[in-house]
């Protein structure tokens, strides 16, 4: 009896967990390549809107997921290109694309939402939730293997730690960051699509807004490590999914419940920064710094 309720508690958190986890792993991969990723929240919001709109027009949640992945990956490639090819400020590019994402999300989602508020959502069944968790685990393990054991992963990390040295050893920095951007943002897009299609199961203007930052905190508090992110994403997913249960238990208002993930995200950032974790899981050395090589005579 007790075990089944615990099982439900765990399985029920699967959509929120998977959404945060995929977005956080994507964020981690992209930042490992040295690009400061402040556009995450905008693209997360946009991805949610696109997934919803697609799932309304073509009543198939998988198409929504696919559309969100494709558009988000394009954004990732765009960010990687602008920040690596030109000596632009990563922060400014990220923030401006965040606003673009917010704007486009409303522009795309609202007209469709006013016609049909119902899309083809993912089923709320145990089998689907188990599938989600398994998929998340597989993606996490693959991402971990890719980052730590393959030549590609080593090159991506080198691009983040010291792009100048990596470049002189023959690593194409632009190519690595483009790949990291595409992969990372594809995962962020997948997370966003699952957030709306599997977790909230409703879309209104502003759905997903701010939750990209929660994914940001989930990734940062686990040092951008795909396996450690499992723990932080599980905590956040559980918290968010059960926040209404907690609210009922402690007589909290829905406003406090809505606030909880953001407070938890801030606490996670503090917990990470105030403990020895920060030294063990240090960010890439050149994260957010302008990559510019002086012209060489050929």
């Amino acid at each position: 009896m007790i075990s089944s309720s615990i099982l439900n508690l765990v399985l029920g958190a699967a959509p929120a967990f998977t959404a945060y986890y995929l977005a956080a792993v994507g964020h981690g991969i992209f930042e490992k390549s040295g690009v400061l990723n402040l556009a995450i929240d905008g693209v997360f919001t946009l991805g949610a809107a696109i997934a919803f709109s697609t799932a309304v027009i073509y009543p198939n949640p998988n198409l929504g997921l696919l559309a969100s992945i494709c558009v988000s990956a394009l954004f990732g490639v765009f960010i990687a290109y602008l920040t690596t090819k030109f000596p632009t400020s990563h922060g400014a590019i990220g923030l401006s694309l965040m606003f673009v994402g917010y704007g486009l999300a409303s522009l795309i989602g609202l007209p469709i939402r006013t016609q049909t508020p119902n899309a083809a959502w993912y089923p709320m069944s145990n089998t689907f939730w188990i599938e989600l968790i398994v998929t998340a685990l597989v993606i996490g393990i693959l991402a971990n293997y890719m980052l730590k054991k393959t030549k590609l992963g080593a090159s991506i990390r080198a691009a983040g730690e010291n792009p100048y040295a990596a470049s002189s050893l023959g690593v194409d920095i632009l190519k690595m960051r483009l790949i990291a951007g595409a992969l990372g943002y594809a995962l962020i897009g997948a997370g966003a699509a699952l957030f709306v299609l599997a977790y909230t199961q409703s879309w209104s203007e502003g759905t997903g807004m701010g939750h990209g930052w929660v994914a940001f905190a989930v990734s940062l508090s686990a040092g951008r490590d795909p396996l450690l992110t499992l723990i932080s994403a599980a905590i956040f997913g559980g918290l968010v999914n059960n926040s209404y249960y907690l609210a009922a238990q402690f007589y909290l208002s829905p406003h406090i419940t809505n606030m909880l993930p953001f407070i938890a995200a801030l606490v996670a950032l503090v917990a990470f920064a105030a403990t020895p974790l920060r030294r063990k899981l240090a960010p890439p050395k050149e994260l957010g710094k302008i990559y510019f090589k002086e012209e060489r005579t050929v």
Partner: protein
Amino acid sequence: MVVTRRIKPLRYGGILIPLLSLVIGIVISQLILFAVGVPPEMFYSTLVGGFVAPQMLRIFIMLTIIGAALVFSFTGSIWNIGAEGQIVWGMVFSAYIGVFVAAHSIKVPLNELSKYASMPGAQILDSTYGVVSILTWNPFIAGLVMVLVAALAGGIWASIAGALRAYLNIDEVASTLLLNYIAYYSLNQLVTGPMRGISVQAAQFGRTDALNNALTFPRLPIPGTTVTSVGVATAIIVFVIVWFILKYTSLGLRLKILGTNPKVLLASGVNTKKYILLALTISGILAGTVGAILFAGDYFFLGKIDNIVSPPTENMGYTAILVAWLAMLDIRAVPISAYIFASLMQAGNTLQLNLASVMGSHIIISGAAIKFTLIGMVLLTFSVLRVLTEYNVRFIKGGKR
């Protein structure tokens, strides 16, 4: 394509680049809005109208204040993206002073209500339920306290992010943004809980009671605008404070060095942590004042935020980032930049109304969507074009890097 560092900075780059990015950003936004059904002629005519609309002054005043506040922290490379939250707390605390301290609402028996109608300082808020607001403070002092308390609230809220950045090195962009959302939901919690009013509308919709008429900031006698004298005075004071600190004090100089080369500051024995904390706190103090101006100048009551895309701050905390950046972080250019973006925001508001009347309800475009697209596109163009001020981009056949 070859990118090289410029030996001399681009001539007139400080004017050319912002203007160029403004134009390109607007054109791209127009194309995007055209794709979702906004007629171009309507877009541009509304845009031009925004520059001469009197109500634009209201936004101009507030954007000048927040823009100056942001220039202050941005000078030290401290990216305060949390002006939204700071304004929200400014609103909450000025509303507390205005509705609960400087005046308060009481419930009176309906048969005695007529006595309050002619009583000085008393204002009947709700005649069906018998709620009267009784003024207890001098309106001038109350106005002053409301602005100061709003400033203090903004400062305290910003100092959280400041302390996190200074002592734990947590990126202030992420923390200020997270704090914005916490502020939004805190406002909701407060106005539906402890600050909920006793009049019928307040009890029904979850908002505070209305501000006593005597406490609302007096409006300037310009037709067509709701700009207040307090707003104008605050804008001038804030502008002078920021200009003075940055130009004439050691605090300003140290902030500038913090922004360009923090290692020099550390090496000369300056406590950089203190300056990081100060930059965010003062920035928050200045931005917080806008909360009082919005509350006692425009809204007169605090309501619940139903849609976090369009909070009562009217997204000005975000728009001011653009104001500061397009002024190239030069405080003297802030009013010009604020004027441009106030006009754009005003145009966005008008555009939304015009769209609703012309196109009917089948195409819904929210004001926030127009604002965000415009902010994002201009900022994006600017961030890319700004490269040209310090670098030279040449296209050479076969030039590959």
